[in-house]
């Protein structure tokens, strides 16, 4: 059962989607645990969500300062040891800056912030996508100014070869992301980052679909059977 599972949701100064991420964890049947950027430990959580926003105002580079805040030490350590970690939007940028995920997110091709509902194709079976089938299409919001995924060709080839491209935009990437990549994972499939916002797609009333809930039910199911 997933009831007793605790998922940490980090709040940095400037984090915006922490309430949404916590709501998604709760709707999926887990217990959200608020983690503060200044915390030096993870309070015994079973998984961590690094939510979206503009941590530290995106100063220097999006995610760069947050990646070096106290709470990220134990997150990186736990992530390398196999704890499921999900980075959404700014959280994805933070995980890249922290070295948990390869590549980087740079300014959108059109140089403007884009808020749009996008189609997202699930491309890999990971800790955060196990309740989907590969090839399944999700409808979730994308909202970012620096969402263009880039990496050198060798890295991209390696990611594709190892099945670590987790999500691809099913239409041409609105931000110009290389190979239409919307999300990638660590080699063990436990750490996932994506630019679109599954936590905003958990209720037809407020989002384009309920597709996003699947990421949270996936990880809870994984943890429950572990």
């Amino acid at each position: 059962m997933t009831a007793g599972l605790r998922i940490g949701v980090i709040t940095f100064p400037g984090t915006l989607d922490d309430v949404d991420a916590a709501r998604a964890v709760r709707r999926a049947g887990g217990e959200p645990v608020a983690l503060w950027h200044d915390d030096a430990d993870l309070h015994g959580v079973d998984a961590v969500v690094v939510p979206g926003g503009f941590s530290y105002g995106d100063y220097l580079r999006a995610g760069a300062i947050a990646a070096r805040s106290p709470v990220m030490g134990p997150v990186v350590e736990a992530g390398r040891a196999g704890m499921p970690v999900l980075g959404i939007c700014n959280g994805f940028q933070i995980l890249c800056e922290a070295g948990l995920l390869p590549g980087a997110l740079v300014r959108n091709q059109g140089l403007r912030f884009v808020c749009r509902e996008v189609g997202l194709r699930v491309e890999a079976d990971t800790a955060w996508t196990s309740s989907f089938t590969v090839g399944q299409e999700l409808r979730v919001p994308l909202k970012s100014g620096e969402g263009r995924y880039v990496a050198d060709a060798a890295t991209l080839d390696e990611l594709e070869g190892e099945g670590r491209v987790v999500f691809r935009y099913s239409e041409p990437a609105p931000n110009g992301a290389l190979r239409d990549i919307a999300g990638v994972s660590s080699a063990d499939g436990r750490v996932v980052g994506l630019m679109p916002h599954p936590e905003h797609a958990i209720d037809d009333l407020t989002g384009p679909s309920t597709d996003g809930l699947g990421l949270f039910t996936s990880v809870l199911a994984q943890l429950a059977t572990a």
Partner: protein
Amino acid sequence: MTVSPVPAPVDPAPPTAPPLPPLDDVDHAAATPDQSQPHAALGLREEEYARIREILGRRPTEAELAMYSVMWSEHCSYKSSKVHLRRFGETTTEAMRARLLAGIGENAGVVDVGDGWAVTFKIESHNHPSYVEPHQGAATGVGGIVRDIMAMGARPVAVMDGLRVGPLDAPDTGRVLPGVVSGVGFYGNCLGLPNIGGEVVFDPSYAGNPLVNALCVGVLRHEDLHLAFASGTGNKIVLFGARTGLDGIGGVSVLASETFDRADPTQAPSRKKLPSVQVGDPFAEKVLIECCLELFGAGLVVGIQDLGGAGLSCATSELASAGDGGMQIDLDAVPLRAENMTAAEILSSESQERMCAVVTPENVDAFMAVCRRWDVTATVIGEVTDGDRLRITHQGATVVDVPPPTVAHDGPVYQRPYARPDDQDALQADTVARHPRPSGPAAIAEQVRTLVGSPALASRTWVTEQYDRFVRGNVTSAAPADAGVVRVDESSGRGVAVSIDANARFCRLDPRAGAQLALAEAVRNVASSGAVPVAVTDCLNFGSPEDPGVMWQFAEAIAGLADGCVAMGLPVTGGNVSFYNQTGNTAILPTPVVGVLGILEDVTRAVRSGLGPEGHAVWLLGETRDELDGSTWAGVVHDHLGGLPPRVDLAAEARLAAVMADAAADGLLSGAHDLSDGGLAQALVEAAVATGRGARIALASGPDGLDPATVLFSESAARMLVTVAPGDEAELARRCAEAGQPAARLGEVGGDALRIEGVDPLPVDELRALGDATLPAALD
């Protein structure tokens, strides 16, 4: 170095500072009565300066002069508008006030929305800064209104923006509009505030004077209401948030209170030549929001005031005026981001992201601890004193010693002359009737397409796609829906609907009727969701109050809006006046923007904007008359503005809103869309495009035997398109008959085109593509 706030042309700075002249404290001012002062350069008239001398019994110090000049500016003192704005207070009845927890005069009005919840909302202009520097001007406009909402003790939950710029193809529009949109988006997105709607309007009158009006909605529990007052002798005054710098000095007195051709915005009276436009840091504001909410939650705040226009001058004098004592402030304690700032500069700086709180001495440590947790700079800069003076010291000397109300409230009041413009009769006589109306299926379809792709009606997605509408997960409806809908209470589903509207073309033809039509449209938009309209905020954008014709427009618009609010039982809870919106001697179209707040007991029952499912019936509620003067059709097709605006019938608007609320509460309606710009044709197009479905429509010519083009393009008010399941049609008809609501069945939802009787078929995909292409083609 000089202590004057007026530029002394001494740049570049000498390597060693020149000897300081004597600090202009109150003793020095008293001893040097004849010293000339730069009151005119600061925007004060001779008689205003004389009055300050009379109040103080001496000449003001330079710091006092700076305070009075910003606080007595048009922007802060409402000196030209006050006599007219009083009408709102005088006409508001006890019954209208029943839901108000705070009204005009507070930072923002607060409305009881039930179950112990309250909502505060307010709209404000940031027009002139947004012309000088579109991105920062618009960004700080959002920042300012958000702080007003925070100052009431509320959590800001949504923003809206009303934007008016020159023609889409005018050269400067390509600079102003993208800059403004990126500024609104940058600030709101970074704050985590969903943008739920607004307006984008193109008109030549805004080419040299764009309008940027920003609205913020905040939510609080009744018991969390905070007001701006400083009381309790010995209580501490804490300044917290960003440091105080040289930016935005003179913003309100120079930028917001003068016409551009008289005050060169690049030559603002700051000796350090920093821009009069402030620079925003939304990250600092986001942290400040969370910090404030934690302070409120812990009960650590007695009174609070945001620092916006006029900075510390405004915050200290208003807090002290609203309290029961005096106040002592030490400017040496103010954290600065520039060296050698004079008292006058510190007092008039409009550095953003600052708040001022009144805190009991025993709570100061706890207050500081919360600020430290959020890395927010906080400093005790003074305290509440007994007595009735606001005393401010700088470098050990008393530089301000004034009765606070004389700064904050007792500014000049002008009875500006006003007169109906000479050209008004000719304008109203020049109706659009002399222009041809299309006839025949092809000609009408062609004009529908022309309108759909016109800048006036084209899709605003290029704008709204730059705004986050998902954050916090409580927005159930946002642009292009008629109203933005935000859930207030997740457990009960209780929420609010908000819309902002104005039709400046109608206002030009008849400002009194135009203001009421704006109110009617905003009410209708809110009602289209099924919400019950309960309160009004307004942003009154006009030309120079020194022009009697403009003053007449202003007086008429206020009279119209006040009477309209009485007729609909809606209180005006607060708002903002922006004058001097003109280029040379040419004023903008009179633009009173009206925001309406409505309550939804359960947002899950809100009516969706657009058409219902295949096979549902399409009904038109309300009456269509031959009313094309001032319409979008007249403007787009014939480049014509003249005649009289559509008839105002507020009883009909109220009846329509009541029918909508009842039908929505009982789940009778599967879709709705209000009729406004572009009339029935555009309403059908927008509903079809929003839903991705067509409809088969028969046009009733009505009792007046109107031709199809008139039925399609008329902008008669008090009308709404609704869709209803076939089985519910009889019930809808029964309710309308019972309420005396005119209603007619037009057809049913279905197919992939709009098939309007007497008009060539209009495929929905083609309509969408037409509307979507216009803004990107001009702006990308």
